């Protein structure tokens, strides 16, 4: 980190502390969400109904157009060559044969690439989208094994792929930091995440731990992971004069447009990014070198460019989750009341990546304990920039913490669910603020009953059917509620009674377009088929990241703001001749295609009539939500109680998840069908995290050695049992619609629930993910 960055982070930190105090002590009613959203109480609308995806038919027909499926006249195809050393420089690069190959239009290297500004690194500024801020093909320096060193454009993909294979690079290698233990030896520093140090201390955890009647103290490890969205990263790019148009696969259209403008010295409005469908993101689909290189090559060649990364290319130039080594030490009295909690450890990052894997974040709000030390130390490796992957921090942090809770429960002879209940906090243990909504005990109670937790025998290895040892485990899932600043939405109401709502958000399969159609329909009092949602385009309002599970909240609040503006305008237009005459915005609700007095439904006029009488074809209202101060006023999180039944083969050590249940407390569920899919999807990625997934990094040369779906094992159909999903459906009174995001929580807690079940089945405590056969083989 540079001096400048450090100074800025410190300044940010001071400001944040002052603001934070003020926000904490302010009255509830001053906060966004201080007055409950009227939709929370609404009963008979579209919210809560299992509406099928509105983009379902398009996707089932294969007609949804993804980034690599836009066709442009005169388009050429790109291929990339990747460095084979981790650090050093390009001593010589021979492109003659490539240039002479059939169909080749351009060979681009650092020698002829246009001059570009470095990408703005994610979190460094509001709209920064870059996975790191290294220069992109600007000089001969090599920063990681896999860095792009040359790009070829050719008339066909086959010609581009052939030509790129003809490029010869000679490197002058320099000593690189690729060994974790050596990097740790060189020194570590305290990590920081979202402007705050990854370090918390309350009380004296070391002393309390030393004095505790019961203790556990173990080290847990998690490997690198890659997102592996089924759609590899791709973009189709064209320059129209000085306007840059990018059909991208991204979870950050507005961020990408702004960031590309910085890189190419353009006006932000001269960059247009579309991303109507994204074939999975999980944190990986942001701005990496491929879009930048393709745009540069398009400019040099004067041709539209399609760049579609190979699967190997995705591993080489898109970051993944970094590895962790975590210590969890717990101390308790004989009744299981926690007296000390230490969660600390080390994670490597690349020198320029945007974050260290923040594995202590879920622990901050987990349990009532007076003495707690949380700490993330970071060392640096010369590697592809690590990045955000589904529940960064929580996915692997909960594995360590919730495994340790299981170990403590066994030592104490207390049921693991009971142990957690005995340590249920009544306010945020670190922040001291109240929870907005926390019903985790209820999630456990209902989940345990449904799962048949009482059938579990606490003694490990006590249940066997033939060759198979059977065990049960549970763990807590948790993920923060986020609502990031920058959202906006626009509602356009037409005199035919239809509404269009626009926001620059994303549909990567979460169900955003469907759910927001339901919400908007309910807010306006319209049927679903009278509402059109437009998204996935940087020219639409707002800066809305599909990240942090925040889209539902961010869009929900933005649409609410736009709606409030719309109602004010409608009441003005309605004038004195309307049954609505004299009513104030907070006295009316959207219902039956118009507005009505909230208690006297006969005072009603429909939208078409209001607009027609006012001689208006349409009415447009923009909404910008308030800053998300509620996040500091309350401790806001989603929760889940995860239950796993596993069968482990006593002869081969093969673990098979036979049953899984997730019991969630995530506010009001807006669409049971799409929400259940989100929960299941997270859990299935958690099954991969627990049992099979590992990006293998060769510590000798910094190269990823399993960059393919054959060698990186994500769960397949036979690995996925029936996954039962249930929820409390208790609305959070302080969020739009009473809802929480549901995209990431499923991967949290799952790893520990599986590890705990493995222990219960076999008596083997595996603290080193993934839990593969060799670790269970007797």
């Amino acid at each position, binding site marked *: 980190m540079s001096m400048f960055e450090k100074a800025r982070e410190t300044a940010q930190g001071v400001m944040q502390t002052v603001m934070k105090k003020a926000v904490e002590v302010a009255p509830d009613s001053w906060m966004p969400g201080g007055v409950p959203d009227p939709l929370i109480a609404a009963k008979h609308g579209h919210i809560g109904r299992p509406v099928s*995806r509105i983009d379902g038919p398009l996707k089932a027909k294969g007609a949804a157009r993804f980034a690599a499926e836009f066709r442009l006249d005169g388009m050429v195809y790109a291929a990339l060559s990747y460095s084979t050393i981790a650090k050093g420089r390009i001593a010589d690069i021979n492109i003659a044969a490539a240039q002479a190959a059939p169909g080749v239009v351009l060979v681009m290297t650092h020698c002829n690439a246009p001059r570009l500004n470095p990408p703005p690194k994610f979190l460094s500024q509001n709209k920064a989208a870059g996975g790191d801020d290294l220069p992109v093909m600007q000089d001969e320096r090599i920063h990681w094994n896999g860095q792009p060193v040359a790009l070829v454009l050719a008339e066909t993909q086959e010609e581009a792929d052939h030509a790129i294979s003809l490029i010869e690079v000679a490197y002058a290698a320099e000593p690189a930091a690729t060994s974790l233990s050596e990097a740790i030896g060189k020194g570590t520093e305290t990590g920081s995440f979202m402007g705050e140090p990854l370090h918390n201390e309350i009380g004296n955890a070391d002393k309390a731990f030393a004095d505790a009647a019961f203790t556990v103290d173990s080290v847990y490890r998690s490997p690198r992971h890659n997102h592996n969205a089924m759609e590899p990263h791709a973009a189709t790019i064209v320059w129209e004069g000085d306007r840059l148009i990018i059909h991208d696969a991204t979870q950050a259209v507005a961020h990408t447009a702004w960031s590309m403008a910085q890189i190419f010295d353009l006006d932000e409005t001269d960059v247009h990014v579309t991303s109507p469908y994204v*074939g999975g993101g999980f944190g990986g689909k942001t701005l990496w070198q491929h879009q930048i290189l393709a745009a540069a090559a398009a400019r040099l060649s004067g041709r539209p460019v399609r760049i579609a990364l190979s699967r190997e290319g995705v591993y080489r130039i898109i970051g993944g989750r970094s590895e962790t080594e975590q210590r969890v030490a717990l101390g308790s009295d004989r009744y299981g009341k926690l007296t000390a909690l230490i969660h600390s450890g080390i994670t490597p990052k690349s020198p320029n990546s945007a974050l260290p894997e923040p594995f202590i974040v879920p622990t901050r709000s987990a349990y009532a304990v007076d003495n707690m030390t949380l700490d993330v130390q970071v060392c640096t490796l010369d590697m592809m920039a690590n990045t955000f992957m589904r529940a960064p921090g929580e996915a692997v942090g909960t594995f360590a913490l919730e495994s340790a809770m299981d170990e403590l429960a066994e030592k104490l002879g207390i049921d693991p669910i009971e142990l957690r209940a005995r340590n249920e906090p009544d306010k945020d243990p670190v922040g001291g603020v109240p929870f907005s909504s926390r019903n985790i005990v209820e999630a456990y109670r209902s989940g345990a009953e449904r799962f048949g937790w009482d059938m579990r025998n606490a003694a490990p290895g006590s249940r066997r059917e033939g060759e198979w040892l059977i065990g049960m485990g549970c763990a807590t899932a948790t993920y923060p509620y986020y609502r990031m600043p920058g959202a906006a939405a626009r509602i356009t109401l037409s005199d035919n009674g239809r509404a269009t709502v626009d926001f620059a958000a994303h549909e990567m399969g979460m169900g955003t377009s469907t759910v927001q159609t339901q919400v908007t329909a309910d807010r306006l009092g319209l049927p679903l088929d009278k509402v059109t949602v437009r998204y996935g385009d940087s020219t639409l309002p707002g800066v809305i990241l599909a990240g942090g599970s925040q889209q539902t909240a961010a869009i929900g609040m933005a649409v609410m703001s736009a709606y409030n503006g719309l109602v004010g305008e409608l009441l003005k237009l309605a004038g004195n001749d309307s049954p609505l005459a004299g009513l104030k915005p907070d006295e009316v609700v959207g219902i039956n295609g118009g507005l009505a007095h909230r208690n006297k439904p006969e005072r009603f006029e429909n939208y078409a009539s209001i607009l027609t009488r006012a001689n208006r074809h349409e009415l447009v209202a923009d909404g910008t939500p308030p800053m998300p101060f509620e996040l500091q006023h309350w401790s806001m999180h989603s929760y889940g109680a995860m239950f796993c039944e596993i069968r482990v083969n006593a002869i081969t050590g093969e673990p098979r998840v036979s049953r899984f249940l997730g019991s969630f407390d995530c506010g009001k569920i807006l669409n049971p069908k799409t929400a259940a899919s989100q929960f299941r999807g997270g859990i299935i990625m958690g099954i991969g995290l627990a049992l099979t997934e590992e990006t293998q990094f060769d510590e000798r040369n910094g190269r990823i050695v399993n960059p393919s779906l054959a060698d990186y094992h994500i*769960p397949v159909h036979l690995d996925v049992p029936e996954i039962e999903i249930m929820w409390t459906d208790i609305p959070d009174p302080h969020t739009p619609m009473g809802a929480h995001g549901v995209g990431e929580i499923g991967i949290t807690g799952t790893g520990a629930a599986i590890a705990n079940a493995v222990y219960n089945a076999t008596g083997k405590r595996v603290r080193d993910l993934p839990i593969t056969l060799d670790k269970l083989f007797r």
Partner: protein
Amino acid sequence: MTMTVNGNTVSIPNDPRVSLLDFLREHLHLSGTKKGCNQGACGACTVLVDGQRVLSCLTLAVQCSERDITTIEGLSSDGVLHPLQQAFIEHDGFQCGYCTPGQICSAIGMLEEMRRGVPSQLTGDLCAEVVAFDRDEVRERMSGNLCRCGAHNGIVDAIEDVFREAAE
């Protein structure tokens, strides 16, 4: 040399390196068939060749002379979805939708294999004329079709809904 794609006769490209997948996507602009790995590991590119499921990324277009290819675009007619397409929507058998065309084509090919009595690793009776429909049979046979969004339960539900009777 020609092949038939969704009922239309098309000529095979000159460049022998062109895979069936790239031929469909880049030459015929049938981009419903997806490319998830281009190396036979994900199933996203599955199409039906003479009724059998095939990974189009591992098939060269020139190998398909006189063959009859059906892609996802060929399953619905006049806007009417194939029952399996409809069931995928109903059971939420996808999220992002990228693996979906491959899953659907693969499932159709799989049904034929079960009807013909082709056993899988899980099949108990290797001599049965028809393999009995069973959710785990489906899971085993569909395991070559990866889904990173985790729509597996919905996919098996959709297949069961449409094919359980047809299979037996």
